């Protein structure tokens, strides 16, 4: 099932398919270890459509909701 990262539930894993944003966001996410093919675990989701907290390669990253919507993933 192909969806965006913001709709993955807490404690669920997903595999990155592509990043639909522009150059800047692709590079930025790449630097934090988020590339197509990487496995992401969603750990927390803040209230009021706030950011999500993910774990990738043993590292925690907070992504704003708008950013998470640009990460296309395959849910496990």
């Amino acid at each position: 099932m192909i969806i965006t990262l913001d709709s993955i539930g807490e404690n669920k894993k997903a595999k990155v398919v592509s990043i639909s944003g522009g150059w800047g966001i692709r590079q930025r996410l790449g630097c934090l270890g988020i590339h197509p093919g990487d496995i992401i675990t969603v750990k927390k989701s803040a209230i009021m459509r706030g950011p999500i907290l993910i774990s990738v390669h043993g590292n925690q990253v907070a992504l704003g909701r708008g950013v998470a919507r640009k990460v296309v993933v395959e849910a496990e």
Partner: protein
Amino acid sequence: MKIALMGQPNSGKSTIFNHVAGYKAVTSNFPGKTVEYTSSKVNLFGEIFEIVDLPGTYSLTSFDLAELEARKYLLKGNVDVVINVIDASLLSRSLELTLQLLELKLPMVICLNMIDEAERKGIKIDVEKLSKILGVPVVPTIALKGKGVKKLFSMAYKIGEEKGIGKTINFSKDVEEVIAQLSTQIKKKQINQEFNIPERFLALKYLENDSYFMENYEEKSNNLFKKIVHFQNILEETHGRQSDVVISSERHHLSMNIYESVVTLTKPHTSLIDYMDNILMHPLFGYISLGLIFYLFFNLIFSVGKMVEEPLLDYFYRLIPLIGKSINPNTLSFSIISGIIQGLAGGIAIVLPYLFPFLFGLAILEDLGYLPRIAFLLDAFLHKIGLHGKAVIPFILGYGCTVPAIMATRILESERDRFIASVLATMIPCAARMTIIFALVAFYISPQAALAVYILNIIVIIISGKILSRLLPEVTPGMILEIPAYHIPSIKVVLAKTWLRMKEFIFIAWPLLIVGSTILSLLQYYKMDMLVNKFFSPLTSLLGLPVVVGTTLIFGILRKELSMLMLIQAIGTSNVAAAMSTTQIMTFTIFIIFYVPCVATIAVLWKEIGSKRTLFTITFTFVLAVILATITRFVY
């Protein structure tokens, strides 16, 4: 020999720097705290080294201003050795920067920092193998405890003498072919010589579509530009992705391969601190904890400050009449002496008792790694004022001092966000204004009233943020922020940082304070204060304040805490409550909090957001202060 510390944010560069240079660079547990480079000359092994602590950068393709600064410094080309500091517990990701640094062909040493933290996480690294693969020395360190730092610098010295450079790690065959062809073209045109960097590095940057190099280049010759586009297209066609994604994925794979070949994974040791996020980042308990932490923090500052302020003030104000017995109170020398004493007293008795517990507590929260968590919790709220979660970091630093807060806005990606965050940061009551809130409002009215001042301040900032983001309607780019692991703060580092920040008050503000009180004494002696007060009388009468307050407002522009201390001197008593009503105390405080930033802030604003916007900020805050203080006069 010039040694530059380069690495990803929060990898411990400043900690290593401080270990050899003394505590000069502020360290904290959040990514991106170093926004400017700090350098220091250090004598090691009988040799003078210039050590440069660069801002952290995730890659050599830079985005924010701090990262750009690091890259620019490195490309300038007069660094003898690069120490690439890596957080060993994040080895695979960190290697992506290492690979780019290797492409620069500079003498380099790798520092595997926080090796203890990596082992705790179950990551065991074969140091020798890593060194063999990359062709550069690798030194494991625990910078916080100083372990391995000496060896690191002796290795850096050796490499600098030998001018030893590492290996070039090759990408997939087809990608290498494209790189080789583009490199040849670049070499033929001698473009790389202008930048003074290896042609392979430049070729990669072109394939990555790096805007800095592309822009610099486009003006020069269109022939090569067409070729770059041609090669980018080749990569896109063969890989089915944008060429920058092809390069970054290649680097990612290489890093993963190196990581897998040098690391053995064992079972991680988890400790209580790893579970803290279950509460501190919880959708409900997270906010309750946030409120509780700040409430306790507020109480700590007040109780410590009050305990010290009362006896000290008493002591100093008994001193002045004593001097009056030996020197005639109507002479010039008495005026000068009492001015100096009042300046000294203000610093010791009024400012320091509140400043120390505040800075100490802030340092603990920073080193623990709590600030990025606040950014996570408040992101949704900050979107309501047109910013995102990361803006919390300059705001919280703003409670310490406005100058570093404005510098910290560099971690924000868009110019508009930086502008809004800078203006709002000037309105946050810094430690100087905090002492006014505590020493006047909390001390003479009540702690609840002081808390109310803080809450009112936050409400005003929210409304101003809303107004500014309406005036500049642009979508904020969205937050991408690393949340580092918690670290138990080291008491030594916390004290060193508190001292570094207090030095600013002791060596800059305090002398100013003493000079200020002496000048006021002189003005009073020659009855010149009347003129100043008369000039300000339209304002003071509008706000319903005593006319003598006029002079203090000028001093407040130099340093905010000056206005309070001058106030005490101007009204001629240390017991403010005797000369001013609670309404007047409140009005005065509200006005001081919001009106015109201090000189140091104006200077840094000028540099960061430009003259026009600085003048806007000054006018905006002045008008706001007058309106709010007038309302306070009639409502409170």
